[in-house]
């Protein structure tokens, strides 16, 4: 402690103090990024307890390795609060840029603001932060990713066209309280209500997990034998639901349509097999696009507020052809 002069201590302290104000008043410019041969890059991951997150991390690591950048990787283990602390430790370590996959819209604002204050540009991946509190181009560089609400909407729109008279829906929600669960539910529910003629007979959480998804689907299929559509918020629960449907002596794809989001290889294979009717991709391979955006930003380019990661859509028409490119 004695090595630190009183002045730097106080300066840092005031900087932290200013943080609170930064929440409502955007006053500083977006930090710039110098053009260098190599960078020290931070990647603050939310959690790594599902295949999608693991694929995302792998993609980031692979791309950093390819470019020869040093990657500081942290894992918040599902805690928004820890993720903010992780970002702070990256700031302390003096990284050049931070890729942040925010666990939630609101609680990560302090992390974004702290980085901005420290002059480190932040790029958001796969989830955005609350737009009323922080803005792309001002507080952070951009948001790369897809729209969870839109994903749910796309599923609903496909269903409206291809239901073939099926109408009673069981919805398997993601982990209660998580933003993809909320958004995928919101997008789907709104669009399906607008389409008319459908009824969501049951909607329960399956925790994004295969086992829980199966158990919940088993119970719901028993209680609602007339249900003929299962909409799962991710592949794992959809695959669990297929097992439940088969155990109940019904044929997935024929008696019951299964719809999913994420589009991993196993799910796309299920589409090919006719077990899943359709799946919206949510591409986890962020590496190339993330580092490309970073390079553009370093070159002084103006980055659009939302770099859209285009998501594919798989159904019987294209699944076989696209199978090899699924993650």
């Amino acid at each position, binding site marked *: 402690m004695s090595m630190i002069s009183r002045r730097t201590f106080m300066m840092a302290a005031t900087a932290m103090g200013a943080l609170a104000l930064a929440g409502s008043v955007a006053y500083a410019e977006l930090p710039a990024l110098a053009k260098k041969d190599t960078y020290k890059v931070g990647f603050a991951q939310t959690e*790594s*307890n*599902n*295949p999608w997150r*693991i694929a995302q991390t792998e993609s980031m690591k692979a791309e950093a390795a390819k470019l020869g950048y040093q990657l500081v990787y942290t894992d918040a283990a599902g805690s928004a609060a820890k993720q903010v602390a992780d970002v702070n430790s990256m700031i302390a370590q003096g990284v050049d840029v931070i890729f942040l996959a925010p666990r939630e819209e609101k609680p990560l604002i302090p992390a974004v603001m702290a980085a901005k204050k420290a002059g480190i540009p932040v790029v958001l991946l796969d989830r955005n932060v609350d737009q009323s509190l922080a803005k792309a181009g001002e507080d952070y560089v951009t948001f790369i990713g897809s729209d969870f609400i839109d994903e749910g909407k796309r599923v609903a729109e496909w269903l409206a066209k291809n239901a073939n008279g099926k109408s009673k829906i069981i919805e398997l929600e993601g982990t*209660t309280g998580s933003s993809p669960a909320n958004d995928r539910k919101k997008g789907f529910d709104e669009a399906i209500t607008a389409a008319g003629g459908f009824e969501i007979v*049951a*909607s*329960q*959480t399956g*925790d994004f*997990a*295969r*086992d*829980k998804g*199966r*158990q*919940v689907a*088993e*119970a*719901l299929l*028993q*209680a*609602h*034998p007339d249900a003929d559509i299962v909409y799962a918020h991710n592949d*794992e629960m959809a*695959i*669990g639901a297929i*097992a439940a449907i088969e*155990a*109940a*002596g019904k044929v997935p794809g024929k008696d019951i349509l299964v719809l999913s989001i994420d589009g991993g290889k*196993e799910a796309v294979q299920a589409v090919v097999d006719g077990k899943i009717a359709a799946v919206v991709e949510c591409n986890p391979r962020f590496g190339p696009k993330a580092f490309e955006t970073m390079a553009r930003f370093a070159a002084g380019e103006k980055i659009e507020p939302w770099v859209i990661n285009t998501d594919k859509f798989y159904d019987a028409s294209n699944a076989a052809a696209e199978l090899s490119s699924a993650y």
Partner: protein
Amino acid sequence: MTTIETSSPPAVRSSRVNAAKLLSRYGTFAAFIALLIFNLIVTPNFVSWQTLNVNLTQVATIVIVAVGMTLVIATGGIDLSVGSLMAIAGAAAPMIFMGQLLPIENMGILIILSFILPILLVMAFGWFNGFLVTRFSIQPIVATLVLFIAGRGLAQVATNGNLQVFKNPDFQFIAMGRIAGIPAQVVVMIIVAILAHCLIRYTVIGRQIIAVGGNEKAARLTGIPVRRVKTFVYVISGALAGLAGLIVVARNSASDANLVGLGMELDAIAAVAVGGSLLTGGRANILGTVLGAFVIQLVRYTLLANGVPDAAALIVKAGLIIVAVFIQQRADKA
């Protein structure tokens, strides 16, 4: 030696005491029956073989783990590591039969090994729990906390967090197969429960488990190998957790080290508590534990089937645990 005294007249017990005793003995059963009746009236399509099938297969793993937990709790301990041990066994089995670990070609042998080796592995971890508890006198809650934290990490490291997807009907027989029309995992559950019940009731080691939980010092002074008995229950708990882990991954055609057995320790402890074995040790009611697990499962099913949201279900579960334990203790004091 002939001091025969007219023994005092049989104690007059008030009806309130009787009610409490009855409630504790048959309370869990009564709750089970009440739930059944409630479902018969309220839940749509409750009466069907498939409903029975669904509930039995879902409760199987909880029962298997909770039986091991009952033994540990009977010695006055607790095992928080069961969920992590399930993940370890669940991660190890596919590695074996998918040929990643052993240079063996014969599928039959691989399948057999993929049952034996993972369970031996988690038994070793169970032994480790017992070792910490007996050798270093570390409180069980702390000792098993170590593997609760690190165990799942080990499984994740081994699989690099990746999902292992497989299709192997032979291995998956334990979950998908049927024996005389009964799902294999249900058969396993029944066998485990009966064996454990007999172990506690009729075997020497079973009675020694109860004695150790009832009064450890006295047990040691009567020559009971206390350390060995305690280590034994952790090993058994580990083995049963491993078995449950294998069933879960077989059921899902996939092993996910991140999620297999997550939160299982709480379900198992709740089943033991609802089933009437107090956490203080000295008692092991296996049938009660089975019934406790059934009640918890049926509550879960009831809430799911009737569209009660997850959040409310948590509160119901909390109330259930408190009421069950309260009745148990009330009767115990009377």
